[in-house]
């Protein structure tokens, strides 16, 4: 066999057209999201506004309404997609992802605490910090509960427990706070929403998401080695404890920063790797970059959908992602059932 005939998806383990296609997808979604709104802006006006020659109305609509919303969607989606792919690889479990494991709800609980008890008013950075800290605690609790178990279902059960508890905490915190819109706000945090986001939200999420992505994309081969189990990976020179800390911090910081501005949006990290896996050699490392881009596409697309569907009050993002995600979850569970 000639050397150049190896391997099939050489050398990245992905279909050669995957990354270019996803890149186009991200651009199309971003443009569609910027274009879409109650006020119709012609492409000329949008282009003029971006180059700084536009009228003030077009500029205000773009830079204060549509661009922040689009950027938040891209950042949050990218982070959730990547975090899902990384957690699935690390835990060797196709059902793992931030919301199923309870990290999203726990981060949202931290954010709710920061906002409704006035902590975020002391310093703006305290909002993501609290969100990250509470996500980190949830993940550590989860890894301690089920990280060593060989059964994928133990982990999912532990995740559901953590997620439900954090969700109840969010409801409790909002009910206790002197807030006339508590019920609405609870929904926004539990189902996620990126309505009316400003550049301030972008600046809150951006550094956290960037740091999270950097931590998660460093040394993807450690995840490949884990395909052989923990002993197999360690015997290939992977420093497991260092990998665990790096990934734990990466997920907590990235997802914590994202959730602090969007609330807990479920299933993005589950759907995206599931759709992309067949287009790769199925090794965890090949999934990371496409899942990041796919997450950005999916969440921006879902956000366009909630704006298009004519309902009395705008649909929450988590509703759309749950309708897409639960079937994927069920397919995996049914497959898993053969092993029970």
């Amino acid at each position, binding site marked *: *066999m000639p*050397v150049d005939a*190896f*391997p*099939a998806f050489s*050398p990245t*383990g992905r279909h050669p057209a995957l990354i270019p296609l996803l890149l186009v997808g991200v651009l199309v979604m971003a443009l569609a999201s910027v274009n879409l709104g109650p006020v119709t802006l012609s492409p000329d006006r949008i282009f003029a506004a971006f180059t700084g020659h536009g009228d003030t109305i077009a500029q205000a609509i773009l830079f204060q309404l549509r661009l922040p919303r689009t950027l938040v969607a891209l950042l949050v989606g990218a982070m959730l997609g990547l975090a899902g792919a990384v957690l699935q690889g690390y835990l*060797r479990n196709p059902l793992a992802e931030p919301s199923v494991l309870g990290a999203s709800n726990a981060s949202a609980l931290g954010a709710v605490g920061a906002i409704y008890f006035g902590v975020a008013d002391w310093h703006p950075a305290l909002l993501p910090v609290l969100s990250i800290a509470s996500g980190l605690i949830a993940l550590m609790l989860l890894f301690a509960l089920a990280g060593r178990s060989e059964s994928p279902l133990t982990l999912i059960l532990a995740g559901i427990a953590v997620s439900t508890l954090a969700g109840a905490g969010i409801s409790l915190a909002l009910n206790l706070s002197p807030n006339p819109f508590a019920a609405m706000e609870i929904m926004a945090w539990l189902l996620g929403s990126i309505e009316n986001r400003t550049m301030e939200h972008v600046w809150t999420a951006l550094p956290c998401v960037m740091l999270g992505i950097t931590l998660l994309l*460093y*040394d993807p*081969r450690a995840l*490949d*080695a*884990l*395909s*052989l*189990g923990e*002993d*197999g990976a*360690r*015997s*290939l*020179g*992977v*420093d497991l404890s260092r990998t665990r800390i790096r990934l734990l911090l990466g997920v907590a910081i990235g997802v914590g920063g994202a959730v602090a501005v969007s609330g807990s949006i479920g299933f993005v990290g589950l759907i995206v790797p599931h759709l992309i896996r067949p287009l790769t*050699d*199925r*090794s*965890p490392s090949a999934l990371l970059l496409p899942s990041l881009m796919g997450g950005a596409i999916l969440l921006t697309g879902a956000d366009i959908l909630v704006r298009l569907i004519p309902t009395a009050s705008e649909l929450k993002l988590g509703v759309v992602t749950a309708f897409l995600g639960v079937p994927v979850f069920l397919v995996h569970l049914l497959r898993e059932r053969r092993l029970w």
Partner: protein
Amino acid sequence: MVTITIKGISADLGRQAVLTGLSATLRPGKLTGIIGPNGAGKSTLVRAVLGLVPTLRGSIEIEGRDLKAFSPCELARTVAYLPQGQTLHWPLSVERLVALGRLPHLGPMSRVSIEDREAVLEAMARADVAHIASRIATELSGGERARVMLARALAVGAQGLVVDEPLASLDPGHQIDVMELLAREARGGALVVAVLHDLTMAARYCDHLLLIERGMLVAEGTPAQVLTAERLRTVYGVTAHIDIVGATPMVVPTGRWPKPQVEGE
């Protein structure tokens, strides 16, 4: 050529002492078998040699250098390891799986080199799996999968190879394939250590046997020296029919020893 010297190591799993002051020398050029009853500490011994379980006392030296002085990647490049159970969590293709063996040679961001690819192809050829290179490893039969896993360990290109129960759930034909492959690697100059349960296979293919009982080395030497009727009774608690064919003994366990007590006797 690499020699591993184990000097009086002890190890615990949880609160249970598994190895107590065990010393042994693992030499290259011949196939070394580690045998002993369930729970004797065979797997813990080989995992300690790979730095996967911490040792409480004693030391392990590879070519005269303390194990603790090796970086994880350096150790991985020196001794390859095939754990029990043929674990594979994702449906990777055979060549992708075998290529995992090259990980200790790659930095976090570096690309796969021509040399790495050649090592993978060569490992697949040595384990006779080149013809199934594009199949999905989780869909193979047990015998094929065992050879693929071995190819993954060979692809590391290490001078030492440690395999833990490579014969589990294989039919006799595939057991012979695996043992012949290991013997070939050993006689090629590598240090090959296999944890084995099948005494007949151990006797037939190994050049050197270490018999472990309750965390201690109780006998070592050629199969004929180690596998005596007396030891099978005391260590394994079985009676056995032992035939010497050429230089190697044929061991067939025949019953429990001491015989189970019948009530009322």
